[in-house]
């Protein structure tokens, strides 16, 4: 039986998280189908059909799925689940929200945030904020799995799968979308950016985060933050990198004024190169940083901006 992947998108763009989940799904060895549930999301289905390894795209285009509310998504996925041996979703807030409902209704345990497929029924996943790695084997029954995006490469766009429309499932009618406040930014998304520059408590104010934004614009980087900076109200919650925020693994992660609490490291320690700027030479972040600059960030950051301008990067 095939594997079903739940697509992550915003009704316009198919997110990279989906392509990465397809890679994990392909490693289960069965055919891969993608479910695109949304409203006026035909373009997303077209993009999903191009992902290598995908045999079929199921398109549920209905106002019910415009915001992927968990109760409606649960009903839709359950209406399709009979044909699948495994159901995978990226560990985005949407995936985390919906998938356990599906697992509970199928009466199977969920395997959260896998980072490696060892065998079609055996997976690795981090526990204790990544301080330990658990190898876990699924029992009989369907497998319901969320996928940590940073651990898998995105599937190539070389496919041409057929798109099949599927009917909307019934609406439980218990939950209503009221509104949303989304951060608008011209910068790349935190979870898919090649370079991330993140600030911590050391930045001292929301105003000072602008210093990082200037560098981010020069490097075409995303801006992130530690929990301390978010809790202090310097930046919105969706900037948070860490165990309970976003997990990122860019080519370059620049930690500025971040001491390096375990919870923060859990969200960025798989970055290819880690650079840190901190005036405290003993800051734990230096224990894992490939390159560390021991300096006052308020001097170093403007200087860095100047240097980068000179080089035209």
């Amino acid at each position, binding site marked *: 039986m095939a594997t079903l992947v739940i697509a992550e998108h915003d009704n316009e763009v198919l997110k990279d998280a989906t392509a990465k989940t397809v890679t994990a799904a392909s490693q289960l060895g069965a055919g891969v189908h993608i479910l695109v549930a949304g409203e006026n999301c035909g373009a997303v289905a077209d993009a999903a059909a191009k992902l290598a390894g995908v045999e079929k795209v199921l398109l549920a285009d209905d106002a019910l799925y415009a*915001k992927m509310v*968990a*109760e409606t998504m649960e009903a839709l996925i359950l209406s399709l689940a009979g044909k699948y041996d495994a159901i995978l979703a990226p560990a*985005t*807030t*949407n995936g*985390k*929200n919906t*998938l*356990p*409902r599906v*697992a*509970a*209704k199928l009466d*199977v*345990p*969920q395997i959260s*945030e896998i980072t490696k497929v060892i065998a079609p029924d055996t997976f690795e996943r981090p*526990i*204790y904020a990544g*301080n*330990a*790695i*658990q190898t*876990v*084997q*699924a*029992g009989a029954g369907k497998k319901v799995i969320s996928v940590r995006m940073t651990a898998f490469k995105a599937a190539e766009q070389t496919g041409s799968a057929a798109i099949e429309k599927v009917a909307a499932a019934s609406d*439980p009618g*218990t*939950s209503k*979308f*009221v*509104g*949303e406040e*989304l951060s608008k930014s011209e910068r790349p998304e935190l979870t898919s950016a090649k*370079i991330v520059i993140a600030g911590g408590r050391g930045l001292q104010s929301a105003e000072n985060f602008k210093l990082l934004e200037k560098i981010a614009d020069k490097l075409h980087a995303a801006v992130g933050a530690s*929990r301390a900076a978010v809790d202090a109200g310097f930046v919105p*919650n*969706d900037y948070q990198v860490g*165990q*309970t925020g976003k997990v990122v693994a860019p080519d370059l992660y620049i930690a500025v004024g971040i001491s390096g609490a*375990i*919870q923060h490291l859990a969200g960025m*320690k798989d970055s290819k*190169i*880690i*650079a840190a700027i901190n005036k405290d*030479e003993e800051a734990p972040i230096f224990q*894992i*940083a490939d*390159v*560390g*600059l*021991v300096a006052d960030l308020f001097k*170093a950051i403007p*200087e860095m901006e100047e*240097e*980068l301008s000179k080089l035209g*990067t």
Partner: protein
Amino acid sequence: MKVLVPVKRVIDYNVKVRVKADQTGVDLANVKMSMNPFDEIAVEEAVRLKEKGKVSEVIAVSIGPAQASETIRTALAMGADRGILVKTEGEVEPLAVAKILKAICDAEQPSLVIAGKQAIDDDANQTGQMLAALLGWPQATFAHRLELGEASAEVEREIDGGLQTLDVKLPAVLTTDLRLNEPRYASLPNIMKAKKKPIDEKTPADYGVDVTPRLKVLKVSEPPKRQGGVKVKTVAEFLAKLREAGAL
């Protein structure tokens, strides 16, 4: 209106976790244990609702070993009214926890369950959602702000792109995110008072739930270690090193 708050006993978040040499798990011997931080936020939110007069009773439930009664006592000292301890030994998977909680909800008929969004030991992030599904209730996960009404709740949620607001009909399940509130420290008089509050002791069998794990943990290992690299003093050296590494 009753609120049910599940609380889990976990390794204290400040403790450096060590993997056992035989790779069967992490070392829990002589390690400080505390209430899961997200559950503390859940207890705090429930107690605040009671203080505002919106809620009549707060029930704290823990599923775990005998010592989990200490975790319930912490909730009682924060202001919960009574506790239910479902005694088990060994790991209990989120699905089994959700099934026990469902049975308790069937018996207690709360209007709201407030749970932590994830436990910092297994990092599963499943129990609240599973409970909502088993009960057929709506959910509002990763709650950032809660407005509780008579028949529904408006909840602002932390999502990948920012914040989303949902209106969920009661009864419902909520899971807490970090910014929902800042949990209080229990005062000494309240800690003393908590000792007199009742805790019911139950077993999974009382609820007809089989807690045998369905997943097989083959091993628990250390993550690959990262080594620190060079430390430099100037921005020029810093950028040069990054360029050398091919990062810029």
